[in-house]
């Protein structure tokens, strides 16, 4: 196995840089204007934050193995976005309670997922898919008769705006960086992280080495739900409006971001850095296709094709003939 290889997160990041540089050559690209290029790059990174945060929970459950996946994250995002919107209602002092409620709603839904998967032995794909339907039902009820609410100025300031006129770095990006460091600490420097990789690699050996697999599974899904809830809070802070289909478009890209970032979909191996790189690549491709003013049909096909190529490069499973 001594052959040249680069780690998937680096590969994904490299791809993003190359794509971005090439995009300057497009007819309506940034050309030779570096200021515009920087502004565009920052904007793409800013947009990647939301996908990146939502994909964080996805990374956790996928690492936890046993076909772990969270198909309810999209609907959790919508639900907590609506909750934040209604609770905050334009007042700065209600932002923290809203954040707390978002995290709790997400954690509760995630806990239900985990309970169904661990105790009732329902496969994660089906359990979270069913939960997504239930949450969507709850959204429809919550949303009926038009929700009234408003995001607070401080949310817009902290999420949608740049740091200051001199340093035009989006605040969301700084939040993401801190978030990324926390995720790294969680995965690499805590018992939780160690146990998560352990149950992802082999549940039986993990159990025999004293890992409480049931508790770990419940914790992984609850945390994934809470992170999706945090994603919903951030998304509404950026958009400033809510709609019934706010979160669903993030669902499959969040799984794709995890896969592109080199996390094994079978569990036990992966990193949040990879997911961050994956989120940047996916956001970049989507926004490039939008800039190129491709019709929706071509956009979808290019997205599907790119994804297929990316996973062909490093998403391959072990060969049967070992």
């Amino acid at each position, binding site marked *: 196995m001594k052959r040249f290889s680069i780690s998937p997160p680096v590969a994904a990041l490299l791809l993003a840089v190359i794509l971005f540089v090439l995009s300057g050559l497009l007819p309506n690209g940034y050309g030779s204007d570096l200021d515009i290029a920087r502004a565009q790059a920052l904007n793409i990174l800013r947009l990647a934050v939301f996908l990146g945060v939502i994909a964080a929970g996805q990374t956790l459950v996928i690492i936890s193995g046993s076909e772990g996946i969270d198909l309810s994250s999209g609907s959790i995002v919508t639900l907590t976005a609506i909750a934040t919107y209604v609770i905050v209602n334009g007042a700065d002092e209600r932002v923290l309670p809203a954040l707390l409620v978002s995290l709790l709603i997400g954690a509760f839904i995630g806990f239900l997922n985990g309970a169904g998967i661990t105790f009732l032995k329902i496969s994660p794909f089906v359990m979270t898919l069913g939960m997504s*339907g*239930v949450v969507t039902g709850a959204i429809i009820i919550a949303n009926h008769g038009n929700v009234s609410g408003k995001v607070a100025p401080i949310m817009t300031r902290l999420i949608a705006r740049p740091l200051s006129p001199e340093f035009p770095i989006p605040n969301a990006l700084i939040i993401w960086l801190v978030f990324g460091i926390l995720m790294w600490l969680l995965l690499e420097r805590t018992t939780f992280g160690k146990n998560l990789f352990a149950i992802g690699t082999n549940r039986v050996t993990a159990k025999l080495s004293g890992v409480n697999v049931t508790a770990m599974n419940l914790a992984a899904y609850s945390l994934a739900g809470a992170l999706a809830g945090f994603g919903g809070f951030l998304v509404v802070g950026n958009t400033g409006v809510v709609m019934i289909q706010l979160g669903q478009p993030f669902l499959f890209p969040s799984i794709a971001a995890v896969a592109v970032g080199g996390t094994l979909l079978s569990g036990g191996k992966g990193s949040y850095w990879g997911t961050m790189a994956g989120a940047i690549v996916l956001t970049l491709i989507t926004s490039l296709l939008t800039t190129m003013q491709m019709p929706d049909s071509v956009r979808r096909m290019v997205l599907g094709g790119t*994804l297929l190529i990316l996973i062909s490069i490093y998403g391959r499973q072990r060969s049967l003939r070992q």
Partner: protein
Amino acid sequence: MKRFRMNSLLTRRPALFALILLVLALIINFILQPNLFAGDTLNSNMRVFLPIILLAAGQAVVILGGGIDISVGGIVSIVNTILAARVGLEGSTEAMWQYVGISLLVGALAGAINGFFVAYLRLQPIITTYATSFLYAGFALFILPNPGGGIPASIAELYRNTSPLGLPLAFFVIAIVLGLWWYIQSTRYGNYLFAVGGKAQAAYETAVPVTAVQFSTYVISGLMAAFSGIAITMLSGSGNADIGSAMTLNSITAVVIGGTALSGGVGGVAGPVMGAITLGLIQNIVSFAHIDTWWETLVKATIIVFALAMPGIINLFRRRE
């Protein structure tokens, strides 16, 4: 002890649970809608259920073989747009049948693309077929950017109101699908399919052509998706590139309610077919129970989650004893 027997029965006959659910759904539906078994109602229900039944049957084969196919909805959309855009409302019957043939080829080809990536390049099925679902949905949108087009009214009429021997056409289609499945099950290919889905590595070591079997399941699924697309086009009579997008997840739910495990190697096609009918009946029940429109989605989703959780709940009680 009695519960233990029931549980082992459920393990050995996964379709039994699907049958119980189906009968339950039929009874509740019958109470809410007393004319359920009248010829007309039966036919109008079955022709609506048929596309998802066909899709679930194909999905079941892939899942039995240890994979999953997220792209079936995209294939349904492609077939729907090809028929609606190429045949047209004023088209001839010959053109229709010609494009039905082309549709089947396209479905098999789309399945072969999935199979190539999953079986030969050994990519993970969920993410691969997710990627191809974008390719297919995009292609459908390319063929028919705006909803429209159509098929000759006579063909639609043929699908909607043919009832040989006084039974809905769908019954005969289901009988053919199940008959084929029972035949396949008894062949060597059937054994291979269960072996590959159960434990691909062990199957490989005992000289089962794992790659070819995996590849074939995606071709079968693509073909069944094409049949499903043809059925839904005849049902709706028009084209819409988005028609299949909601069907993928329904097909997977039908398979699981039908007692076929997502981990592969356990189950069959009869269960998923019953699962698909149950899903349709649940929709009926929710609409006939006069539930507030706003609550419909929640009620339906909760019923489905309970249906999915039921075997687990039974198991939980058993272990408590």
